[in-house]
């Protein structure tokens, strides 16, 4: 028990951990960020739907790249995550709660 | 068309490289005038020539192959011409400074 605890806490203090955390934030978090924001965008853009979807898909990689660069620019890994999660949660909430109620239709 | 545009881009880049101090020094050294300095008017003239050469090449490409293909040609030629220019500056000149 004690040993397990110590390994866990040792792991939490490992110098490589923030880096690992950032890499996950960049690759996974950035991907989710790009998707959620672009989905909102594709709902909001005027014009035919296929057009909005296509332009969103084309732009998604720019959003992704932007997110990755943000993650490695942020001062700490925690800040990096925060900067990603806030827009993700906001846009996810937007999608889950507002859109089914027909606010956008 | 390609050859003319290539020559134009090459001349354009040559003129532009002359306006850069480091390359101007290289070039003047190779013709035994290491201390030569360009006047302001000369610089301006070279810059204009350089940009004109590049623009003219673009015009020719677009005139010949239409907007889309013409711009692709032009971009490609710019790359090749700039690369040749840089190889010319480092290998093609008679630099006996060292």
């Amino acid at each position, binding site marked *: 028990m004690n040993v397990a605890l110590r390994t866990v806490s040792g792991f939490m203090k490992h110098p490589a951990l923030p880096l690992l955390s950032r890499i996950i934030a960049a690759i996974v978090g950035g991907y989710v960020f790009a*998707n959620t924001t672009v989905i909102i965008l594709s*709902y909001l853009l005027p014009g035919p739907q296929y*057009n909005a979807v296509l332009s969103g*898909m084309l732009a998604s*990689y720019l959003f*992704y790249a932007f997110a990755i660069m943000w993650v*490695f620019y942020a001062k700490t890994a925690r800040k990096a995550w925060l900067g990603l999660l806030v827009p993700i949660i906001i846009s996810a909430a937007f999608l889950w709660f507002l859109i089914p109620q027909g606010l956008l239709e | 068309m390609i050859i003319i545009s290539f020559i134009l881009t090459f001349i354009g880049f040559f003129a532009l490289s002359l306006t850069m101090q480091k390359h101007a020094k290289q070039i003047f050294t190779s013709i035994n005038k290491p201390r030569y300095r360009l006047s302001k008017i000369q610089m301006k003239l070279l810059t204009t020539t350089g940009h004109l050469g590049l623009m003219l090449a673009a015009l020719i490409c677009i005139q010949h192959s239409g907007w889309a293909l013409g711009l692709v040609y032009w971009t490609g030629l710019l790359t090749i011409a700039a690369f040749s220019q*840089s190889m010319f500056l480092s290998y093609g000149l008679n630099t006996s400074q060292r």
Partner: protein
Amino acid sequence: MKDMFRESMRWLHTWSGLVLGWVLFFMFITGTVGYFSYEIDRWMQPEAPYASNTSDQVHLLSLAKQRLDLVAPDAIYSSVNFPVDRYSFLRINWENPSNKITGEKGERGREILNPQTGEPVVVRKTGGGTLLYRMHYALHYMPRIVAYWITSLCAMFMFIALITGIVIHIRIFKDFFTFQPNKQQRSWLDMHNLMSVLPLPFHLMITYSGLIFLMFTTMPGILTASYGDDDDAFFDSAFPLTTQQEASGVYAQSIDLSTVLVSAQQHFNQSQVRYIRIQNQNDTHAQVEVAPRGFDGLSRANTLVYQGVSGELLSTPNSKNDQSESGSAFVSLYDALLNLHEGLFAPTILRWIYFLSGLAGAGMIATGMILWASKRRKKAQKSGQVSKGLVLVEHLNVGTIVGLPIAIAAYFWANRLIPIHLVGRENWEINTLFIVWAIMPVYSFLFAKKRPLSKVWAEQLALAALMYLCLPLLNLLTTSQHLGISFVQGDWIMAGFDLTMIVLGTLFAIAAFKMHRQQAQALSPTKNSAIKPALKI
């Protein structure tokens, strides 16, 4: 503040470039080779006789038709591809009707014909240039979808490396032409900058459009969010196709294809077309499609479609264009990006510019990785501690940067040396490529203690030179399509391949020679393994 930004971007640039660098190098090289995939296909099937670009197509069509009537009299679909432009075979394709009881798809077939006699040519089984090119996005030995995700991830890393590279390279215009030879690390940096900055439009285009190519695999959520499971609704509205008519099941004698061909030739005002194909043959709903040569801007010139019984012209070349104009700007942007990536529209000189830009891309990755290693080597030499990771990277660098070209040469060698009737020979060709590629770094790593790295470079460069230079010779010994004959016949595709191999081999030889001389010089003072740039391109 600004410095911190630049510092973090420099870190990101270094690592996003290095981590998947070898896969990226592989993608760049195979993709670049792919700009000549048809030409390589031709070289790798030397049994096919030379088909002149200028032969009478009506005659070729009648030969092909004879053969089609013999092998696939009931085919519902058949096509004749003519030897024009980059394509050097007279080829027929067909598909038999599907089984009426089981609903199974009918058998498909393809044959290359002798353009003089119309007899089928038995060509060796090979993946050809098409396989080489396909590997740059579908890799090998793995399911397609897995490969798509891997290559997309690599492309994303490349994209990041490019953007951060622009951000950190402050002296982008000041150093525009700068190359200082013989200054070791400085020269590598110069070369890295030149090969990145000068073809930058190409690099950005190729990386971004590469991502776009696979976006329906990697970004499916955006599509699903709007269309649910109904993907087709999206594709139908974004990329409307001229719908193909179903067969009616009522018999009707199809029109003679040669009349259609002649009419199309007049319509296009060309004596040469690319292909003619017929759908629903001998059915009231038969359709004949004829494709012209050439391009309309960046996309293929539109085909003509004829009613297959009456011979009435159903679509004019302009009708598809009108549609896309009424479509959205983003559809055009998407199309333009894909066309730019594939570069099918590029005539010879532009194709070579594409090829050189692609090589510069590979060179950019290679010099980047060499820089990484040489910087760390310098530090390690000062502190006297060389880490295992550094040694590994150094050897993977040689084994990939020179090893992969060697492996590709080995692929061509295998094409000529593996017995023609061996079962699964086409698999062994590609296995050879990967086996040789694997041997290169392993071999250099095993003997790492015994010899300096620069010697390994020199050896592998020499091997590459030998393998490329001997390819035309091998071609001479094993086929009747060697330089002596292809020159006389005017078979420029065949001759062009051999000549290109000689040029590549010579370049490798020069690089090997330079490396050898430099290594001999560097041997006495220090055991420094930093390497002078040997111009590889």
